[in-house]
Each structure stands twice: as structure tokens, then as C-alpha cells.
């Protein structure tokens, strides 16, 4: 098997390595996925002022803490990228796993939020995707985002072991771009779903 690595590592027909250009295209398509969802949410929210009465059931401290966690994990992955560039692969490996840990904390908080709504004993606090359109949006948007977090964590774990051996260090930047985008999506979901009452 060749140790040269994939073509995307070195080829650059556009001034940007092909692998990185591919990630930018992926992110452009993700703008439509999350952007379409958020645009629909905003339209319905403008038309349904009573949704503010539902938003009070979201937990602002939990959402704020998760924003802090994702911003911090974004710092970790960019530090991993920095270390990979300097060929300090052990340090890059460490920061990648810090980032994965951040994703894990985010999901734990999400689990706490979901379970407190889906399995609430008090009927007033019981909120499922079928409760009304607001909660359909809430679970669709946060659920899709959580799936992206899980996907990012799995990819980071997969590339981390190759990285420690010095293989394909450019992949740290590629997964970093994706992770920052996931962070940006949460930056918008937090005020939309938690803060705007």
C-alpha cells in the first residue's frame, strides 16, 4: 500500500488543497441544511408570537454552558491544528481528545435537557416533538445539530490515531473547519431557541 496519502493531500488546482476545498463545499451545503431550518423557524416565530410562551421552558443556563463548551472545544481543535502544523503530533493528539471530550460534555448536557422534557412527570413540563410546532422545530434543529456533533467526534477519534504516527496531519485542519461550523450553528440556535422569549 502506498504511504503517499490521498491525492487530495497534495493536489491544488484552485490554489487551495483539494481536500480543504471539498470541506468548504460541504460547509456551503450545510449552510442550506441548517440555514433553511433556521429561516423557516424565524418565519414561523414571527407569525406565532405565542411561541415565546414555549421558549420559557428551555433552560438558558444549560444552553449557555453548552455554548461555552463548544467555544472552548473550538479553541482546542484550532490548537490541535497549530500543533499538527508544527509536527508536535502528541500535543495535537491531546488537543483532539480534549475537543472530543468537549463534544461529550455537550451531549451529556443535551441528554439532561431532553430527558427533563421528554420524561417529565408534570404534564405542563412534558414537551415532545409532537407537543406543537415550536417543539418540533426545537427537537429537529437541536437533534440534527447533535448528530453533527457525534459525527465530528467519531471522525476526530478516527484521525487522531493516524496523526499520532505522523500520518495525514492535514486532516486536523479539515475536521477543524467542520467543527467550527458546528460551533457557529449553535451560536445561532442558542439565541433563537433559548434566549428569545
Amino acid at each position, binding site marked *: 500500500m502506498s504511504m503517499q496519502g490521498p491525492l487530495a493531500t497534495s493536489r491544488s488546482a*484552485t*490554489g*487551495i488543497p483539494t481536500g*480543504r476545498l471539498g470541506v*468548504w*463545499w460541504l*460547509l*456551503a*451545503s450545510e*449552510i*442550506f441544511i441548517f*440555514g*433553511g431550518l433556521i*429561516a*423557516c423557524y*424565524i*418565519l*414561523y416565530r*414571527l*407569525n*406565532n408570537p*405565542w411561541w415565546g*410562551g414555549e421558549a420559557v421552558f428551555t433552560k*438558558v443556563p444549560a444552553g*449557555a454552558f453548552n*455554548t*461555552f463548551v463548544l*467555544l*472552548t472545544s*473550538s*479553541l482546542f481543535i*484550532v*490548537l490541535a*491544528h*497549530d500543533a499538527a*502544523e508544527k509536527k508536535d503530533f502528541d500535543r495535537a493528539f491531546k488537543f483532539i481528545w480534549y475537543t472530543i471530550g468537549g463534544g461529550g460534555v455537550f451531549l451529556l448536557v443535551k441528554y439532561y435537557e431532553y430527558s427533563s422534557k421528554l420524561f417529565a412527570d408534570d404534564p405542563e413540563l412534558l414537551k415532545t416533538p409532537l407537543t*406543537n*410546532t415550536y417543539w418540533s422545530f426545537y427537537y429537529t434543529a437541536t437533534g440534527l445539530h447533535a448528530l453533527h456533533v457525534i459525527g465530528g467526534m467519531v471522525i476526530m477519534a478516527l484521525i487522531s490515531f493516524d496523526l499520532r504516527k505522523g500520518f495525514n496531519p*492535514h486532516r486536523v*485542519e479539515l475536521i*477543524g*473547519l467542520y467543527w*467550527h*461550523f458546528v*460551533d*457557529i450553528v449553535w*451560536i*445561532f440556535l*442558542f*439565541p433563537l431557541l433559548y*434566549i*428569545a*422569549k
Partner: protein
Amino acid sequence: MAGAHAHPNYVKIWVLLLVLLVVSIVGPELGIPWLTLLTAFGIALVKTYYVAAYFMHLNFEKKYVWFLLLISTVLLGVFFFGVASDIMKTDGQNWQDCIANNTCAEQQRYFVIDGDGQLR
């Protein structure tokens, strides 16, 4: 890497993002609508800029990547305004808009409708 360039101080950017996060939480607590819009959503845009420009290195990336992302966002705007007129329309010939005349079952949970059909 987005070409050879000096790396920004990532920790400083992170601290700035955390300060902005605090402002975006505290601002809406004051209950002033325009301040809520400014601090919650305005600051979300500022945070996005800092993450994209410095963590994603867009400031050091080829300019056409900006255009790639901006075109996606503009097309999203076309979608938004294209369907807005339909969603925001409050009357029709062959359907009843329960939002406009305040008869939606979901509205009844939070508001009392007075004799004029207005929310109280």
C-alpha cells in the same frame, strides 16, 4: 493550512468570544426588545465573524471561499423572502388562517380571546 501566515492569538480570540457570550446572555435579561435583538442576534453575528475569520482562518484563505459561502447565504435569503410572502399571508379564499383570527388551538393555551377576536 491556509497558506503561510502569522497565527492569531487563539486564546485571546476565545476570551473575546466568552465576553461576547456573557453580553448576549445579560443583554436580553433587561427586557428591552431592541437591546435583546442587538445583544442576542447582533452578537451572534459578531461571534460568527470571529470564529470564521480567525479559528477557520478565513481571513487568510483565498478570497473566493468567502464568495462561495456568501453566495450560499444570499441564496438562503432568496429562499427566505420567496416563501415569506406565503407564510406571512394572513388571509385566503379557500382556507382559514387560524393565526390571523386567533382561533388556533395552540393559542388558546396562552391567551384569552376577547369579544373582538383580539388576544389578551
